[in-house]
């Protein structure tokens, strides 16, 4: 653990609690900008999908999912494309700043899922989903969280790559080819969006269940009285 713990003394009672600076400024900034970007990208993407809600032929067209307009952004295809083609740059820039910062600051070590975390995954799954005993908490992120957050970054990268293949299937024909051509790139782009939304759903559930302390730390950087500090 590279994060520094401090002791906070209550001026009146003299009671001491510990706090850890968990999330550096760049990480918090990227997190909240990305929350907005993801919302806009998914909403406008679903409005774009409404223009041809299918992956088959145009003739005869079999609609897969007539997504309700209430959950879409942009109002019409042209409007949605404006949102999508604007926020994709914000989404991309945020991703690059985040990954760049994590790598160069070394902060990635607290969240990157590595082989040493593998044995800890099953006990956490058992605890979360099968009412198993709670494994001891030793770090800011448990192995399952590391897996989830590392996967989310991987999905983010894939969303950008599939998006570029859909947007530029000719200039980036090698990228589209790797995904099976334009047609399949559009399918992957769509599926990856749902995978990201599934992550976001799980993430929000966990915040609601456990997380006022976690929520505050993503705002101020500081987490009071974290479980993983030695008592």
């Amino acid at each position, binding site marked *: 653990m590279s994060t520094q713990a401090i002791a906070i003394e209550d001026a009146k009672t003299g009671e001491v609690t510990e706090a850890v600076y968990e999330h550096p400024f760049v990480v918090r*900034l990227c997190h909240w900008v990305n929350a907005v970007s993801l919302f806009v990208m998914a909403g406008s993407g679903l409005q774009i999908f409404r*223009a041809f809600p299918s992956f088959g032929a*145009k003739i005869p067209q079999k609609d897969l999912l007539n997504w309700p307009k209430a959950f879409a952004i942009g109002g019409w295809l*042209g409007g949605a494309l*404006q949102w999508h083609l*604007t926020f994709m740059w914000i989404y991309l820039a945020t991703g690059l700043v985040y990954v760049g910062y994590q790598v160069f600051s070394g902060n990635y070590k607290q969240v990157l899922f590595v082989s040493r975390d593998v044995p800890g995954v099953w006990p956490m799954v058992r605890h979360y989903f099968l009412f198993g005993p709670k494994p001891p908490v030793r770090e800011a992120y448990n192995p399952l969280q590391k897996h989830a957050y590392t996967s989310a970054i991987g999905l983010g990268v894939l969303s950008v790559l599939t998006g570029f293949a859909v947007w530029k299937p000719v200039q980036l024909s090698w990228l589209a080819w790797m995904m099976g051509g334009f047609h399949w790139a559009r399918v992957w782009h769509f599926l990856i969006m749902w995978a990201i939304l599934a992550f976001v759903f799980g993430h929000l559930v966990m915040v609601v269940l456990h997380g006022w302390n976690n929520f505050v730390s993503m705002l101020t950087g*500081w987490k009071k009285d974290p479980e993983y500090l030695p008592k």
Partner: protein
Amino acid sequence: MTSRTDDRKFKRMSRRELLKLTPVLALGAFAIPALQRPLLRAGLGFSDWASARLFRSGHLAPTFADSDLTPFSKFPLNSYDVDDPEVDFDIWTLTVAGAVREPGDYKLAQIQALPKVTQNTRHVCVEGWDVIGNFGGVRLSDFLIMIGADTTARFVTVECADDYYESLDMATALHPQTLLCYEMYGQPLTREHGAPLRLNIPTKIGYKQAKYLTDLKVTNVLERAGYWEDQGYSEFYGL
């Protein structure tokens, strides 16, 4: 190992860290109606600028085997207005104007006298569907040479029998796969597919591939970008 601090100081420190996030609120500008339009225009403009940078004159769009072709009967029609603007083929000409040495009316036979090119390329609609079609015609670049176009001009614009209009950046107009197309699937263009002459541009999105051409102009000034572009679609939309 741990440093000590009192709780008031910690609260001030936390508040300061929270306030550092205020730049995120700048994204709220997108929710302000008066700012939303110009911001999205700027975003789309940036995407178009990046698209033009990504475009490579020598890079060819993928081509396909005949066995990959979408059957002609399943090649969709997306007319914005009418399927058939009732062009009179007997008197049809392509009217050429602008920065060219030889403006005037060109007959279909004059265009067809240029070297013929056929290609199986993917047609991608902005709606999201795509088909692989067979297109035959002449290179727009050959035609531009024939009419003595100033290829240092920035745009080629076209007008159509159904009041549709479009524009192309010169780099795309000169691309070897950009065709003045008069055949699909080895047959003369049918009326609903844009007879007698349409654009086929495998490096562009579908709405750029105007049908029922009547006028072509070489110009440096774009008075209007295109039927859909002027309603908010991307002006460049290169694939």
